[in-house]
C-alpha cells in the first residue's frame, strides 16, 4: 500500500487502530470548535473595539449566566472525552483476547529479540499471521535501560522495563510490513533501533513457521519510502524474501526448554511439578491462582509474580514457607531462559 502524504495519521492496520482514529477525530473536532469559539470573538473584538478617538468603554466585568455556561459546558465535554478515552483504553490495553498467540520480546541497547513459543528466535523482526490475536510479553534485559515498543500503524505502545514484564496485544487485519520504533530514549542507538512487524497471510505464515522462505509483503506506510530510497542508492542485494529463521537456541520449543531448565537449575529439588508436597510450593496449578503471602496480603500468580519469585524470592514468600530459604536467581538466567521457565510453569495446569 502506498504511503498517502495527504493523510495525517498512519494507515490503521488493526480494528482497534480504527477505533483509536474515531476518538482522535472527535477530539480534533472539539479542539477546532473551541479554538474557533475563542479566536472568532477575539478577532471580532479586536477589530470592532480597536481604539477610536472619543469612544467610551463599558466596564462590564461580570456576567454570571455566561460564566456558568462557560464553566459547565467544558466540564461536560471533558467528561465525555475522558470516558471515551477510558473505554478505548480498556479495549486496547485491558481486554486481552483469549487464546492470543504469545511472543516474548527482549529489548537491549540497541536491538530487539523476539522469542516465539515454538522456540524460534528472531532479531528486530516480529512475524505474525494476519487476523490472529498476538500478545507480546516484553522486558528489557537486566542491566540495560528503558526502551519502548511502538507500532504506529497499530496505535500500540508500551515501555520495556528491566526486571518487569509489560504487555501489548494486537490483531492485525492487513497483510504487510509495519515499522516499529524504540520510543524511550536509550542512548546512542535510540533512533537506529527500529524494526518491522511482518504480518503474513495464514498460509504464508505456516510455510514460514515450517522453515520455508516466503515473499516479503509490502510496507504499510512509513518504511516504504525509506526502502525505495535505499534501493536507489545501494547496488547490493535487496531483501525480497522473508527467510525463515531457525537458530541453534530454538531447537526445542519454549515449554520444553523451560522443563529442561527446571531440572538443570535445581528447581526440582524443592518444587514439584505434579502437585506433590515438597520443601517449596508445587508449581502445578500455580499460574493464575491466588497466593497468600507471608505478610498476609494475597496476590494473583501472573507472569510478573513468577518472574519476581525466581529473581527475588524473599519479596514473594508464601505463607507457611517463611523459613524455607529459596536462593535467588538473578543473573543466572538469561532473559530468554527466564521466559522459557515462566512458559513451562504456566503450562502446568
Amino acid at each position: 500500500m502506498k504511503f498517502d502524504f495527504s493523510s495525517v495519521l498512519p494507515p490503521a492496520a488493526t480494528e482497534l487502530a480504527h477505533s483509536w482514529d474515531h476518538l482522535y477525530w472527535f477530539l480534533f473536532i472539539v479542539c477546532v470548535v473551541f479554538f474557533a469559539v475563542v479566536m472568532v470573538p477575539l478577532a471580532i473584538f479586536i477589530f470592532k473595539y480597536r481604539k477610536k478617538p472619543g469612544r467610551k468603554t463599558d466596564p462590564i466585568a461580570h456576567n454570571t449566566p455566561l460564566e456558568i455556561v462557560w464553566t459547565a459546558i467544558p466540564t461536560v465535554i471533558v467528561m465525555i472525552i475522558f470516558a471515551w478515552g477510558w473505554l478505548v483504553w480498556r479495549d486496547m490495553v485491558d481486554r486481552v483476547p483469549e487464546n492470543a498467540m504469545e511472543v516474548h520480546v527482549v529489548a537491549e541497547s540497541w536491538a530487539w529479540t523476539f522469542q516465539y513459543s515454538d522456540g524460534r528466535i528472531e532479531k528486530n523482526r516480529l512475524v505474525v499471521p494476519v487476523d490472529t490475536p498476538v500478545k507480546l510479553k516484553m522486558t528489557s534485559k537486566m542491566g540495560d535501560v528503558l526502551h519502548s515498543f511502538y507500532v504506529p500503524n497499530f496505535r500500540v505502545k508500551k515501555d520495556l522495563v528491566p526486571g518487569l514484564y509489560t504487555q501489548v496485544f494486537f490483531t492485525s487485519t492487513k497483510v504487510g510490513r509495519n515499522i516499529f520504533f524504540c520510543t524511550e530514549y536509550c542512548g546512542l542507538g535510540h533512533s537506529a533501533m527500529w524494526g518491522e512487524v511482518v504480518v503474513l497471510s495464514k498460509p504464508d505464515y505456516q510455510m514460514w513457521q515450517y522453515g520455508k522462505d516466503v515473499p516479503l509483503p509490502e510496507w504499510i506506510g512509513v518504511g516504504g519510502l525509506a526502502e525505495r530510497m535505499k534501493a536507489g542508492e545501494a547496488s547490493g542485494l535487496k531483501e525480497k524474501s522473508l527467510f525463515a529463521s531457525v537458530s541453534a537456541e530454538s531447537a526445542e520449543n519454549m515449554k520444553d526448554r523451560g522443563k529442561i531448565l527446571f531440572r538443570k537449575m535445581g528447581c526440582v529439588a524443592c518444587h514439584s511439578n505434579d502437585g506433590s508436597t515438597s520443601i517449596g510450593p508445587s508449581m502445578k496449578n500455580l499460574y493464575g491462582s491466588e497466593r497468600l503471602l507471608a505478610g498476609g496480603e494475597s496476590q494473583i500468580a501472573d507472569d510478573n509474580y513468577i518472574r519476581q519469585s525466581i529473581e527475588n524470592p524473599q519479596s514473594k514468600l508464601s505463607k507457611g514457607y517463611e523459613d524455607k530459604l529459596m536462593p535467588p536467581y538473578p543473573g543466572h538466567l538469561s532473559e530468554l531462559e527466564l521466559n522459557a521457565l515462566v512458559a513451562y510453569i504456566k503450562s502446568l495446569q
Partner: protein
Amino acid sequence: MEHSSPAGTTYLNYPKGLWSWVVTLDHKRIGIMYLFSVLFFFFVGGVAAILMRMELFKPELVYGSPGQIFKDAGAYNRALTYHGVIMVFLVIIPMIPAAIGNFVLPLQLGAKDVAFPRMNLASYYLYLTGAVLAVLTMFLGGVDTGWTFYTPYSVDRATNATLMLTAAFIIGFSSIFTGLNFIATIHKLRAPGQSWDRLPLFVWSIYATSIIQVLATPVLGLTLGLVAFERIVGVGIFNPAMGGDPILFQHFFWFYSHPAVYIMILPAMGVINDVIPVFSRKPIFGYKAMAAAIFGIALVSFVVWGHHMFVSGQTSLAGFIFSLITMFVAIPTGVKVFSWVATLYKGSIHFDAPMLYAFGFLFVFVIGGLTGVVLATMALDIHLHDTYYVVAHFHYVMVGGTLFAFMAGLHYWFPKMFGKLYNEAAAKLSCFLIFIGFNLTFMPQFIAGQLGMPRRYFNYKPEFTIYNEISTIGSFCVGLGFFMALCYLVYALFYGKKANSNPWRSLTLEWEAASPPPLENFRTDPVVTHGPYDYVGEKV
C-alpha cells in the same frame, strides 16, 4: 538598607559601583541581574535548539554531508539534553517569577523591598552557581540523559550526570527561596489600602506559583539527590539489578515536574492578566473567578503527574485516575481564556507591543492547552506519547505560553525598569516574526508526531522530512525575531526616548513610582485607594 536616596537618582545609578551590584540587597537590582542571566541562558539554549533543527533538516544523513551538524548521535543527545536542562531550569522556570516578579512584586504591593532581601540575593547566587555547574559539565564531556534523567540510564550509562544533578539540586533552592520570600512579602508588606481584593492578578499568580515552588521543588531535589547517591554509592533504589524500581523514579520526578510546568505558566497568565486590562482600558472580566482559577489550577497540578506515565508500566487504574483529574485542569484554564477575551468586549484596544504579545499568547496557548487535553485522553496518549506531538504540545504552552507572556511583560515593564522607551515599530515587526516563526516551527511537529515520528531521534525515516524542513525554517525565523528584539532593546537601553512614570496609563501601583524607581521605590509612602483595574468609562 537606605531609606532615602539622593534626589534625582534611580536604583540603576545609586548606590554606585560594580561592587554595590554584586552585594546588592535591592530587589530591583536582583531582578535585573536575573533578567540578564535568564536572557543569556535563553540564547545559549536557543543556539542548541538551532543546531538541533539544522541537524534535523534532513533525515538519516551521513557525517560529512551538507547539513550534518553533529558528528554522531552522542553529540546530538548531549545537545538535546542541554537544550532541555538550560531551557527548563535556567530559563523558563525563573523567567517570570525571578526576573520580572522580583522587580515588579514589591512595587505592585507598595513595599520598599521583599520580606527577606538577603535571602533574595542568596537565591540569585544559588541560581548562578547551579547554572555555572550545569554549563561546566559541557566542558567535562557532557551529559546525554535528556532533561528528565530517567533511570536506569542516568544511573548506569550517563557520564558527568552527578555534577549536573548537583547543579539542578542547587538551583532548586534558588526557586524555593524565591517562593518563600514572595509569600512572606505578599502577606506582610502590602501598603495601606492594598486589600486582598485590590491585588493585581499578577500578584495572585506569583503567590500560587510560590506555593508550588516551595512544596514541589524539594521533591525534585530529593529525587535527583537519590540518583546522584545511587551513582556514587551504588544502592539499588532505581536499579532493577539490585531490586530497585526504575518506574519509581518517574513517579518522584513527575511529582515535581508536573507542578513545575505550572510554575512556568501561572506567572505567564499573571502577566497577561495585568496587560490586557491596561491595553483595552477595561477592568479584567471576573476578577474573583480569575484568582480562584489560578489557585484551582495550582492545586490540581499536584495530583496529575501520572499522565506522563500512561505507557510506562503503571496500572490502568492509576492511568484512569490521573486522566480523570487532568481533565479538571482544563476547566479553570478555559475560564481564564474566555475571561481574557471577554475583557476586550466594549473596550478600547491599543496595539502596543505588550498587547500584541498578549494576542499571540492567546492564539498559541489555546492550541497548546487543547492538545494537552488530547494527550490527557488515555487511549490517545498510547499513540502520541514520546512522539513529536508531545514536543509540539509542550513548546506551544512553554514557549507560546510562558515566553510570549514574558515578552509581553518585558515590553510592558521595560519603561519602568530602565526609564526608556523602545522603538515600537521594531517591536511590532519582531513580534510578528517570532509569532510566524514559532507556528512554522511547531505546527508541523504535531503532524510528524501523530504520523509516528518519535522524539529524541538523531535520524528519522524519510517520510517525515517535509515536516522537519518546515520546522527548521520556522526556527530560523524565530531566531531572527529574537535577535531583532535583542537589538532594539539594547539600543533602547542606551538611546531610547525617556519614559515618564506611567507611559501606559496603568492603574497598578508600580506605575506611581518614577521610571526607573529610586532605591526605596516610592519617595512618599503610597496609599491604595482603588482597585488595580478600575478603568471606568474611559475615553480612548
